[in-house]
């Protein structure tokens, strides 16, 4: 465990040492932004809209006390979405999609000697392959989380009003009640940290793959599992520190 963590730190160091030219990194980062961000919009949209809708319906189902105003449902959907569901669930979804893709891609490059080919050319493969993926993740995850927040709240609105659980006015009133802007900042900080964890852990797993196709699959699975555990631990730590 300690040895693996030490290897991880050395891997991070090697990525920052002997970096490639800015123009090369820029182009690679833009390419990765498209793969990590744009290609994930659909799955993030679907998941977040339905999570918002389900959250709204379930809160409405449990709030049967007539003394509690219906606008509370909107308030709770907003708080849950911004503080927890959008950053954490979106990051877990992305750990599955992006994390496995990064680990699988790098693992395949490793076992087919493409990484060695870069090294022989005198190119720092960690910097060339991994740094753009980490930067792209740290840029795109917060944007996807903002999208997830908006769609989740819209999903809650549609579910609440179409099911007749509350009126549109009540939902909007709830959404606007006691809004704390810092919660958005907190969610974005979480998303940046989660992005780093997912991309760095997945890259580490993929980059050091040894063997054949079976090991690439194992690296991919390991990347997703470890990323999710890291997200949950970081989620708790950040909540304890920043709230």
């Amino acid at each position, binding site marked *: 465990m300690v040895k693996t963590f030490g290897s991880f730190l050395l891997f991070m160091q090697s990525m920052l040492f*002997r970096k*490639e*030219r800015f*123009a*090369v990194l820029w182009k690679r980062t833009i390419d990765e932004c498209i793969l990590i961000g744009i290609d994930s919009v659909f799955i993030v949209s679907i998941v977040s809209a339905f999570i918002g809708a389900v959250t709204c319906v379930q809160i409405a189902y449990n709030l049967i006390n007539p003394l509690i105003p219906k606008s509370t449902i909107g308030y709770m959907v907003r708080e849950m979405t911004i503080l927890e569901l959008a950053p954490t669930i979106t990051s877990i979804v992305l750990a599955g999609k992006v994390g496995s893709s990064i680990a699988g891609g790098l693992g*395949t490059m490793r076992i*087919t*000697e*493409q990484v*060695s*080919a870069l*090294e*022989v*050319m*005198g*190119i720092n493969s960690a910097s060339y392959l991994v740094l753009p993926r980490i930067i792209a993740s740290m840029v795109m995850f917060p944007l996807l989380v903002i999208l997830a927040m908006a769609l989740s709240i819209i999903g809650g609105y549609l579910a609440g009003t179409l099911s007749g659980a509350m009126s549109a006015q009540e939902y909007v009133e709830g959404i606007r009640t006691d809004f704390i802007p810092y919660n958005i900042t907190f969610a974005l900080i979480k998303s940046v940290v989660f992005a780093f964890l997912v991309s760095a852990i997945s890259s580490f797993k993929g980059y050091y793959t040894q063997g054949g196709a079976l090991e690439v699959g194992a690296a991919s699975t390991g990347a997703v599992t470890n990323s999710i555990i890291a997200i949950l631990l970081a989620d708790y730590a950040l909540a304890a520190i920043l709230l």
Partner: protein
Amino acid sequence: MIEVHNIQKSFDGNPVLKGITCTFETGKCNLLLGGSGTGKSVLLQCIVGLMKPDLGSITFDGTVFTNNKVDIRQEIRRKIGMLFQGSALFDSMTVYENTEFPLKMLTPEMSREERRDRVEFCLKRVGLENAGNKMPSEISGGMKKRVGIARAIAPQCTYLFCDEPNSGLDPATSIKIDQLIQEITYEYNITTVVITHDMNSVVEIGDHIIFMHKGLKLWDGTKDEILNAQVPELREFIFSSSLVRAAKKVDEESEGGLEALASEPLSEV
């Protein structure tokens, strides 16, 4: 010229290279010959810097590579071209982009037009001038090796390393690849090191052959000397091939046994 001095390498206490000392000469095809598991690939990886030897030194044209400053190692690495066993082409790039890649990365001062001219020249040199737009998944094993060679020579390498360039290829294609490697070596006067356990390659391009067995260098010489070498392990290795046994017999009875085998005309790969 590449000089290897007393290279030793162990894995988990098991010695794989037990003090290899040898020289790879410029303008020649230097072959590392030996059976599977004799340490050829480990030695090659130590030479190109993919692996760090436990002991010993490697010198490229007088400049020490092992344990030298990173900048100097990088400078040497940029003069190295390598053809990998599985070609190691970048899956996401076309044949043209694969060949252009080292130029883009290593020679930023080159203009787009200069790069295009160089890539077209290299692809033409390996006979793939019409395959530039193909993806690696769309071409044959022999063509992949050719692209690998084109990529290796594109930045005008001084040292060319080939890790089993014939693996997975039919005999006719293998000889074509061997001939291409030899032609490029002579044409550009580069130092070429080829790992092989294929006797056809020995006969075809073995200007200087180093025979390895159990992590040791047991013999070195030329293709003309190898059949008369008196090292038992080498003789066992060479004559394990029934084709070579037959050629040797023909050679003894008439003239040009092995040479005759190598000079058969071949169709285009």
